[in-house]
């Protein structure tokens, strides 16, 4: 996590961020309108840059081929649509299916990127915090397993290294590799089990399992969160109402609807852009506050 991200989003309550991102993912996932998809994609990329920094460029190399494959696969499978472009193996490749492929893969990409943002901001401890409020025991199972994973992973490497010095020389061949790995894994289980028992004892010794467990509230919802959430809720509800009123109806088949720019539809675009930009605005605002405060030192 880079420092910029920490500054920008540490100020927000995890619930605020979680609800916002869920809203983005839901709207991004279910609205098939070229302009909406474009807006969602654009802001997803921008926020990803804010969250991941430069390393995001590397990740894009992985995302882009995926986007192209999904975009191309649709016209190959689906032959509906009224305007054939050309024929392949006697089947028509249509203009409508191609457009549909491009828009739908843009939609998938935007959802993937919003999920990437989720992964970047909503770290495990924040999720555990949210889960733990309602479902404390499951939250605890999550916490403990999160603590165990790196421990077991280190043990795994340790066992592997040590065993490699013990004459485990023949390591070529797929089956031999699997065999070796499975054997090590079973040894890891033995180790892990022993330490898990001790962890359990340490928990009982500290009173775990007594009735009336409480929990430390780490994040508090502040007025700023409420403002953020209200803004978010307003745009979200407005967009839902807009959909119900048919402002953003869009048809791909049999022919692609031209993009209209009526006042209702344009309003929808503006609202969605505003909602998508919330995290960007937040980052800019934090940056400005930080610069201002620093200038007074």
């Amino acid at each position, binding site marked *: 996590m880079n420092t910029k991200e920490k500054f920008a989003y540490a100020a927000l309550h995890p619930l605020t961020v979680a609800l916002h991102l869920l809203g983005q*993912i839901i709207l991004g*996932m*279910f*609205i*098939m309108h070229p302009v909406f998809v474009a807006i969602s994609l654009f802001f997803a990329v921008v926020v990803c840059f804010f969250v991941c920094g430069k390393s995001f460029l590397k990740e894009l190399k992985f995302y882009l081929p995926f986007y192209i494959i*999904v975009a191309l*696969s*649709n016209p190959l*499978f*689906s032959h509906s649509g009224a305007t054939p472009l050309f024929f392949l193996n006697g089947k028509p490749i249509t203009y409508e299916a191609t457009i549909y492929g491009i828009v*739908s893969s843009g939609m*998938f990409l935007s*959802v*993937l990127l919003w*999920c*990437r943002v*989720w*992964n970047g901001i909503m770290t*495990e401890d924040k999720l555990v915090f949210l889960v733990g409020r*309602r*479902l*404390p*025991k*499951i939250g*605890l*199972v*999550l*916490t*403990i*397993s*999160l603590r*165990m*994973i790196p421990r*077991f*992973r280190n043990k*795994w490497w340790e066992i592997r290294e040590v065993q490699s010095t013990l004459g485990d020389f023949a390591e070529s061949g797929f089956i031999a*590799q*699997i065999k070796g*790995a*499975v054997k090590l*894994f*079973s040894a*890891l*289980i*033995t180790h*892990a*089990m022993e330490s*898990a*028992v001790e*962890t*359990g004892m340490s*928990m*009982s010794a500290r009173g*775990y*399992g007594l*009735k*009336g*467990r409480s929990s430390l509230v780490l994040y508090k919802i502040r007025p700023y969160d409420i403002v953020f959430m209200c803004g978010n809720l307003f745009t979200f509800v407005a967009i839902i109402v807009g*959909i*119900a009123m048919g402002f953003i109806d869009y048809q791909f088949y049999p022919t692609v609807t031209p993009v209209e720019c009526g006042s209702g539809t344009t309003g929808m675009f503006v609202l969605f852009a505003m909602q998508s930009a919330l995290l960007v605005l937040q980052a800019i605002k934090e940056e400005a506050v930080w610069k201002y405060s620093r200038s007074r030192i």
Partner: protein
Amino acid sequence: MGTEMKIKMIISLLLFLVLVPLIAVGGYFLFRERGYIWVSVCIAVVSCIPFFVSFERKVSDVRKTVVLAFLVALSVLGRLVFSYLPHFKPVTAIVILAGIYLGAESGFLCGSLSVLVSNFIFGQGPWTPFQMVAWGLIGFIAGIFNAVMKKHISVLLIYGVLSGIFYSLFMDILTVLWLDGGFNGEKYLAAVTSSLPITAVYVFSNIIFLFVLVKPLGKKIERIKTKYGI
């Protein structure tokens, strides 16, 4: 847990049971052609709730908590350390064993939490709720038939094969729904065929890991169960 907490929990349970179907139906009419995927995601999320709540309401037992966390950690780690062998992973085997030795609810929890945690490493996405349900159900059903599976290893292995196939078919539904919006038989068939080799690896790895792990892991869990009386 105080009565206040209990009331809170019941209210939230009701909210989920009423609100989510409402949202699902509303979303169906709202999103039209994307309605299928919306409804299926809603169903996936909702179907996790009762399992979670029922686990939450049972008496908290340190050992069960720890062993469960241990199994979750193990299957996440399994997914991680075997990631160099694509699709060859011990997760299903561990989830099945969790169901058999710790009970159906814990089986569901082991499956769904393993997904939730490991997707922090492998990437969260709309597939997360689907995987949670798929793996959770595999563990849950194993928990229901635990007596037979404990006795006959052949039944266990057959279940391993079936769950490998089930998982693959289930996730293919998502692939088609997500890509296409609606359910398209032709595309589904294409997805299933193209994922046949992967399904084969799932089945193969399930058999291998169940075969290898059932004895040591079972013995360990049983040992701890008798020693500490879970």
